[in-house]
């Protein structure tokens, strides 16, 4: 690991000023950043430790019924907050399907949003990577790319975004509160992460020094609570990143879908909101063939970026299954294996 200056600002304003310098990086729990630094993948010259900042670790219910999650709230704390999990069960399930208990106890919400891709070539300092080293090329093209992107990728980068949390947040219209040198602004979570294009090194729309201070879910997102699931297919049942995942949320009026939300994970360099699929579902009656049509719409623009054509078919299956589970109803208790296709959900056939 390279050495670095360590600074611990007392206020968000001081943090923003300290982090705006070239080479600076924010340090929250460090569960991703320290790993990258140990591997020589990331080499910040200054760490701005935000973990001692006050008032960023609260989960607040807003007067309009929305919820504001401080950037330093731990993943486990949010997932196990009873009121939050009851109102936003797909978010809780997404959180609990990710990482391990130890990592969830440390990792923060802000850090989760800004974690880096787990593309093996990005994470290996000896491989060519346009994201790490613009213009160097991409060893994932023509390499082991079974797990890579099928949507929104470019010739310069075929990596995926690894977050589970972001997928559920994107489905539910979350908003990110950001503080920078020019003051505070709000960014829809759906537009926080950039697709790679020709500049895969530019991962988010954040300006230098801009800091995520909170994530908000609108009150309307809680209207899906009775029919909201997260489903995640992985190479092992626990403690693995998604090959493909989906957050599905339905607002049902008897058996008619008044409103639907679908977002996919593991398919692109950002959480992928599938609005075309939502339009197919809106106003329709719950039905297996409807879910298949919605899945086809969600993946209509997909194309393989390597040995991963199977992911297009797999993603459609995940969308159908996630919608089926959501329609059957949110289980009263979090499944023993959150997000797992092997988990039996109460009131739902796991093979629906």
């Amino acid at each position, binding site marked *: 690991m390279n050495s670095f200056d360590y600074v611990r600002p007392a206020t968000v304003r001081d943090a923003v000023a300290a982090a705006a310098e070239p080479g600076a990086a924010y340090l929250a729990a460090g569960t991703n950043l320290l790993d990258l630094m140990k591997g020589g993948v990331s080499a910040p010259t200054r760490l701005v430790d935000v973990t001692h900042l006050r008032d960023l670790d609260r989960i607040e219910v807003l007067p309009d019924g929305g919820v504001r999650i401080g950037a330093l709230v731990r993943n486990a704390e949010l997932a196990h907050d009873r009121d939050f999990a009851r109102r936003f069960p797909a978010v809780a399930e997404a959180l609990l399907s990710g990482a391990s208990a*130890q990592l969830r*106890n440390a990792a923060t919400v802000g850090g989760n949003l800004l974690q880096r891709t787990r593309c093996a070539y990005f994470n290996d300092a000896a491989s060519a990577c346009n994201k790490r080293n613009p213009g160097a090329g991409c060893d994932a093209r023509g390499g082991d790319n079974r797990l890579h992107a099928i949507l929104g990728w470019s010739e310069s980068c075929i990596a995926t975004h690894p977050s589970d949390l972001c997928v559920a947040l994107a489905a539910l219209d979350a908003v990110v509160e950001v503080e920078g040198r020019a003051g505070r602004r709000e960014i829809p979570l759906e537009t926080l992460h950039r697709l790679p294009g020709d500049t895969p090194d530019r991962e988010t729309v954040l300006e230098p020094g801009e800091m995520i201070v909170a994530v908000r879910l609108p009150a309307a997102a809680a209207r899906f609570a009775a029919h909201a699931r997260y489903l995640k297919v992985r190479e092992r049942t626990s403690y693995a990143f998604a090959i493909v995942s989906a957050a599905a949320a339905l607002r049902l009026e008897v058996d008619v879908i008044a409103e639907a939300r679908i977002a996919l994970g593991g398919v692109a360099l950002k959480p992928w909101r599938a609005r075309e699929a939502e339009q197919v579902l809106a106003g329709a009656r719950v039905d297996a063939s409807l879910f298949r049509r919605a899945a086809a719409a969600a993946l209509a623009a997909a194309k393989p970026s390597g040995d991963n054509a199977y992911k297009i078919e797999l993603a459609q299956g995940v969308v159908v299954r996630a919608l089926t589970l959501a329609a059957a109803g949110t289980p009263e208790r979090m499944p023993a294996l959150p997000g797992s296709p092997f988990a039996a959900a109460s009131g739902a056939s796991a093979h629906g």
Partner: protein
Amino acid sequence: MGFSTTLTVNGVTRAIALDDPRVTLLDLLRERLDLTGTKKGCDRGQCGACTVMVDGRRVNSCLALALSLDGADVLTIEGVARGEALHPVQEAFIAHDGLQCGYCTPGQIMSAIGLIQEGQAGDDPERVREGMSGNLCRCGAYQGITAAVLTAQKALASASRKEVA
């Protein structure tokens, strides 16, 4: 340039001078405080051998900067027994053969203590396995580990009922 951090480790508060900001909690415990019970496996947050409790939560000590934890309360495997009396989780690991080579065991035990305190698993072996998935055991002692966690949980629950009564 010098740095300092104050940590309470196994009940003892210490002001610790550091000559390098890169020191992780794991390296601090093992290399500077001579608490070598906490093990370094992968050093990258994947194996769980370095699990300790920080402010009552189980975490991977290899992925935490010691400086950043200034003011924290740390519990390691050296701090869980009461004198000669083993912690109920330690006793249960022995009773159920929850180990073979033993290298991952301190991390398994700290993780199990954390899991039981979190109170999410109940008596469901599936939930215990899921909750312990951040701790790898290359000897494959998982069946014994799961049985040990379930037994220890019962022992701790009945002990706390007695305390209340």
